[in-house]
């Protein structure tokens, strides 16, 4: 029997489409399946400040007709409250049977996956960081270049973070900074030497957001709608890659199909699952399966197929958030501006650990997000923040993923249970980070507001990785350097699940590059196979 397809890719997120391009370009018959969730609420049309002043229907995208933001009041990130992103996260845990115990589990059933609500942070892993990968660093170089050029990255500038990000060869110029970040950056340059001695480096954030138009997407116009959704598509989402894949006749798509199992037949595989539209069970066959459903969903599919019921380790970055106040800019009027990371820092802790973080403007974020944490009565909290926030920026901190002790385990009912907590080292590390950041930003004219430095809950980073790590000689529950699951020939993992390490850096670009690498290798293998009949 001839299988329906050469390759079935499960998931149309960043890793799925990155693996799809080389396979489709090689002329293979490729099917992408995804959960098919589509946007329901549209983000504002005008820039954020104009929309806030003029749009009497703004509650629809700020709170949601179904009170989405109120339902998600206690969710870990403002992004999870945004009605226009609701579709990206909805039903993931229920349909994929993922249960977090004292651990935040977020995933996506949307076409385009989590990239629909992505912070767009990108970075390249250094040769030292790739040392843990079972292949030479150079294998990823071509992929980094290809993927970076495809998704569009901005932030190219010769600064102290150029080497850290390692992306300037493929980047567009940076998006203009706001007055607060401009000031921080100037003050940094004045105190550069001193700050370097403290282990602090600052530079422009490198983000997958366009500063120059491309054929299908427009450059950022500083509308300030980054949190709510960009109508210009300046921010990368893998949904935007699907039209170019669709131009190929050998590419097919099945949206609204949630895979819950894989079955091996003689010489090929079948993905099994349910269509969302009519609940019908379907089985589609291919000679190879590429799993790109997101770390948690992929892990469950693999463990279930292997019937592997021992816990596997999960990497996840400990996070914290803080707020900086620039007294010199007190009383500045609110200005529209870029809402994602504008400046990023790296900070050395305890000689061996590096923390990474970025700072953001507060204008595009609802004040309600902050006022809950202000120790004032609500009425006066609003009064205070209204004056204060225009001279504040918010920042985040990430620590390397091995500092979270988490694991995922397939339960008797075939659900995936995820548990975990931060390692004991995290609190002292975060204390040290807070202290060092306070000192560094103080010399840059900014006050790290007392009480604002808050450690996030485990899993809140939504950077999950490493459950099925690539190894030189993999054991059961691991993957080969080609991403192939040990014990399941023909099943490949291309998303975060196969990363052997998770650094403090944004990991999405590396996942995409690795998916491209695996895709290219797989295309070569299949081409050889067909040559040999």
């Amino acid at each position, binding site marked *: 029997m001839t299988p329906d397809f050469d390759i079935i890719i499960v998931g149309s997120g960043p890793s799925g489409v990155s693996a799809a391009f080389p396979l489709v370009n090689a002329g293979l018959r490729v099917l992408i399946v995804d959960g098919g969730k589509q946007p329901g609420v549209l983000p504002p049309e005008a820039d954020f*400040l104009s929309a*806030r*002043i*003029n*749009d*009497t229907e*703004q*509650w629809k995208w*700020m*709170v949601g007709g*179904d*009170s989405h*933001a*109120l*339902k998600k*009041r206690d969710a870990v990130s403002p992004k999870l409250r945004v009605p226009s992103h609701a579709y990206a996260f909805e039903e993931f845990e229920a349909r994929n049977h993922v249960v977090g115990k004292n651990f935040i589990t977020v995933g996506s059933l949307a076409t385009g996956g989590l990239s629909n609500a992505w912070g767009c942070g990108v970075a390249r892993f250094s040769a030292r960081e790739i040392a843990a990968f079972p292949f030479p660093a150079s294998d990823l170089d071509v992929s980094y270049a290809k993927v970076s050029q495809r998704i569009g990255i901005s932030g190219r500038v010769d600064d102290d973070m150029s080497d850290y990000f390692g992306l300037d060869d493929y980047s567009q110029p940076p998006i203009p900074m706001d007055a607060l970040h401009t000031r921080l950056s100037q003050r940094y340059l004045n105190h550069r030497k001193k700050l370097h001695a403290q282990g602090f480096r600052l530079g422009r954030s490198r983000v997958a957001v366009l500063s120059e138009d491309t054929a299908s997407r427009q450059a950022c116009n500083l509308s300030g709608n980054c949190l709510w959704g960009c109508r210009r598509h300046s921010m990368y989402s893998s949904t935007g890659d699907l039209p170019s894949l669709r131009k190929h006749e050998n590419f097919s798509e099945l949206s609204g199909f949630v895979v819950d199992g894989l079955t091996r037949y003689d010489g090929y595989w079948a993905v099994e699952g349910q269509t969302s539209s009519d609940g019908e069970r379907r089985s589609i066959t291919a000679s190879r399966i590429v799993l790109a459903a997101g770390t948690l969903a992929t892990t469950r599919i693999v463990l279930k197929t292997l019937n592997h019921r021992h816990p596997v380790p999960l990497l996840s970055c400990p996070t914290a958030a803080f707020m900086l106040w620039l007294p010199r800019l*007190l*009383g*500045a*009027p*609110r200005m529209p501006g870029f809402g994602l990371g504008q400046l990023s820092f790296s900070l050395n802790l305890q000689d061996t650990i590096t923390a990474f973080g970025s700072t953001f403007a507060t*204008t595009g974020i*609802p*004040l*309600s997000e902050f*006022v*809950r944490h202000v120790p*004032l*009565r*609500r*009425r*006066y*909290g*609003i*009064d*205070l923040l*209204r*004056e*204060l926030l*225009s001279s504040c920026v918010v920042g985040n901190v990430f620590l390397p993923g091995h500092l979270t002790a988490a694991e995922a385990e397939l339960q008797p009912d075939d659900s995936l249970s995820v548990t975990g907590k931060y390692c004991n080292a995290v609190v002292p590390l975060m204390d040290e980070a807070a202290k060092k950041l306070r000192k560094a930003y103080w010399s840059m004219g900014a006050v790290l507001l007392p009480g604002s430095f808050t450690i996030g809950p485990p899993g809140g980073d939504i950077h999950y990785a490493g459950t099925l790590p690539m190894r030189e000689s993999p054991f059961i529950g691991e993957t080969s350097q080609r991403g192939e699951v040990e014990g399941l020939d023909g099943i490949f993992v291309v998303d975060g699940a196969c990363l052997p390490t998770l650094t403090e850096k944004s990991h999405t670009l590396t996942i995409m590059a690795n998916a491209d690498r695996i895709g290219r290798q797989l295309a070569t293998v299949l081409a050889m196979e067909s040559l040999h009949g």
Partner: protein
Amino acid sequence: MRVVVTGATGYIGSCLTCLASRRGHDVVIASRQRPSTFPASWLPFDLSSDNSIVFPINTNAVVHLAANTTYTNRLKNECELVAAQRLIKSSREVGAKFIFVSSQTARADAPTAYGRTKWHIEQEVLSAGGWVVRPGQVYGGELRGLFGMLVKTVQQLSILPAFVPTPKVQPIHVDDLAEGLLRIAERGDVPPGVYCLAAPEPISFSKFLDGIAKSRLRCWRGFVPVPVVIINALAAVLGEALRTRLGLERLRSLFDLPVMETASDLKRLGLTLRPLHSGMHPSGNDRRRCLLREGRALLIYVLKEPPGSAVLRRYICAIEQLRGGQALGLPRFFLGYPIFLSLLDKSVWASKTASAEFSWRLDTATMLAEATPTGAYRFLGLGHEHGVLSSLFSMTSAVACEVFWRMLRVIFFPLVRLALGRAKGAL
């Protein structure tokens, strides 16, 4: 269940038939005219006609509501008794429960023919093993029956009589009564007998009228004392025909209402009656009105100005969708003077759940208020004067206000705690 209802187009009957068909019962209407709107089966039935009535087979219950409420001549009252006897016989033939809706005035020696007739029918029903329901002062819903007349009277007169000594009534909302009747019809564990359905605690008739004015008509009415002796003297002089025409007959039966012991019957049916202020609201309850007041107070507190109606509606909608739709029951003082909500910080609440619920609602009001153009000005400081000095001043005054309210909170803590303890609502 198949249930036949006589008087189905009347005040109580229409509520009962609606409720019964909503519950999925097969409702058969027995009335003089075929109802034009209600999609149910119909049996021709007239109290004053001699034709016998045949109920459909499989009829489980007959609720007899049809009554001559015009207080006219004795002949008609006798017709009623005969009609009831025929109905009892017909229902026995098909093996259906017979439920008769009587009156609080029913007694052998009632001052009115109406009350005496009801008593006679009750005796017939009880001896046939049927159920008798004596409702109290029925109110609420459509302006029909005695309630409709009272509402119209209160609407027309700016000064109302306060009878001395004051007669007492025991109200029951028409929907609660319909629920009670349906439970008797539906359930197999309710033994035959007399059931008195009304508020267990009688209230003065003047208070009832005042409830109509305040909650139903949202107006204020004055009361002038009128001694009952005068009405009785007048009635004696006028003779029965004129008494009836002037409505004095009805008034006299009001003065003579016996207090009914209802608590045990309500308990037996598992029926909880809505409070008068709630039932008097045209929608049948004042839940939304309470929510509206709460939303308005919270939004004013957050916005420092009265909210638009759209954002208020969204508040109500959110509480209904996500929190069960009941108001917290904040003391009235806070609803009238929202700035005093500053006194309600975490520690004043008696329980953690109460505190959490309040802060959930305050957050909701904050998020909803922010998502409006008014909120954009208030929260983003747009349209304000900008500059270091004005910002410093605003921030200092915010902190000063905070300090001020913290001090007030210490002083008023016991009082606020007490007031919150008495509040009735979702808390």
